[in-house]
């Protein structure tokens, strides 16, 4: 479903990778690894269409993503290094807004249920600025627990970082469930993990 053709990446005058090609069929997880600074985040942002490749193309369902834009983004959920949540709002409000950006309208009780899955039930209605770093991370990841049937591609940048074991297990089980529903998941992780579905790996050479 997701194909990369001869991707080149030049950032700040430095050549990060060239001629990177791969194809990920549905219900498959692609794990991207590589040393620090190899260009993992750049690759993920390229797959999302945030970063224009210096060469090559990213295809989704055999069509270049730059020709699909909003239609592609409707199916894509990206969770990057930055949490994308506002300190002033409660966890539930943040979740509702994040879902609305992807075109998913949810009620407060659905948001609450998603937060509950990540162990944040008690913190759903207090401003996020009161939460710890790990808890904020979980608020961002709670997007993955929403009943979000349009999402066919998850791109996750270090989703397991800064999580305790319970939360990490929960995220892995959410990934498993989404893969079972036929989605593609692309992620980076320094922590070891296992999934039930097919797992492919790609390493960006330095």
């Amino acid at each position, binding site marked *: 479903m997701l194909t990369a053709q001869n991707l080149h990446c*030049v*950032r*700040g*005058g430095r050549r990060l990778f060239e001629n990177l090609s791969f194809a990920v069929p549905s219900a498959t997880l692609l794990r991207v690894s590589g040393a620090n600074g190899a260009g993992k985040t750049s690759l993920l942002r390229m797959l999302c269409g945030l970063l*224009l490749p*210096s060469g090559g193309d990213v295809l989704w369902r055999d069509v270049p993503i730059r020709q699909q834009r909003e239609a592609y983004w409707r199916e894509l959920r990206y969770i990057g290094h930055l949490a994308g949540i506002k300190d002033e709002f409660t966890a539930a409000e943040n979740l509702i807004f994040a879902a609305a950006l992807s075109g998913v309208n949810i009620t407060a009780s659905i948001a609450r249920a998603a937060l509950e899955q990540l162990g944040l039930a008690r913190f759903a209605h207090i401003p996020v600025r009161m939460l710890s770093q790990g808890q904020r991370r979980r608020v961002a990841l709670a997007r993955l627990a929403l009943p979000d049937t349009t999402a066919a591609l998850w791109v996750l940048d270090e989703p397991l970082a800064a999580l305790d074991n319970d939360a990490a297990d929960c995220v892995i089980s959410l990934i498993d469930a989404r893969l079972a529903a036929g989605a593609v998941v692309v992620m980076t992780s320094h922590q070891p993990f296992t999934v039930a579905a097919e797992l492919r790996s790609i390493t960006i050479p330095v």
Partner: protein
Amino acid sequence: MSAINWFKYSSPHSFYPLAGRMVPWFLGAAALFGITGLYVAFFVAPTDFQQGESYRIIFIHVPAAWMSMFIYLVMAGWAGAGLVFNTRLSGMMARALAPTGAMFTFLALWTGALWGKPTWGTWWVWDARLTSELILLFLYIGFLSLTAAIEDDRRADRAGAVLALVGVVNIPIIYFSVVWWNTLHQGASVSLKSAPKMATTMLLGMLLLAVAFWLYSLAAAMLRVRSIIREREPRAAAED
């Protein structure tokens, strides 16, 4: 026509040697046109019966003002092409032209002031054309500052391109507003429109110098593009 592949020279790799070969020709031609133009300006064109010899500065002023606007248009053209076709060379050309454009804008303002002093007794009048030229200088400075402030080359090229296009859309509106403002306030009792009526020899001198300035701009832009390519893509430059 079909035999010429225009996109071939849109790659820095093939443009680098081409630019290198063209620079001496452009510079030589610029010198030739420049000397002829200056000869016409100083020896052929008659002395103005009102302004005496001091009017001769318009032989520099007018072509410089033409060039300042023309270069901005060319720059925006390259910028637009860069955004549409996503070619690397376009951004480089736009950035290579900007300093020369700013230089001519400054030259036009400077010679305008020098001309103003003996003619109107003041270094600066808020004349519509001088004011527009000043705003054009601001636009050039904005472009140069923005591209200088961004470290990533591609972002700098593309952000500069957007700004150049926004500028080009705004220039007519700005010019129109300044003319409106000028007529409303009637502050400047003199204006550049009171310049002596153009004789054919005067027009000839200005045209010669405008061509010289344009050839010089091309040579300067080529030299700058070559140094940009050397900096960004040493591989393309090394094979020359």
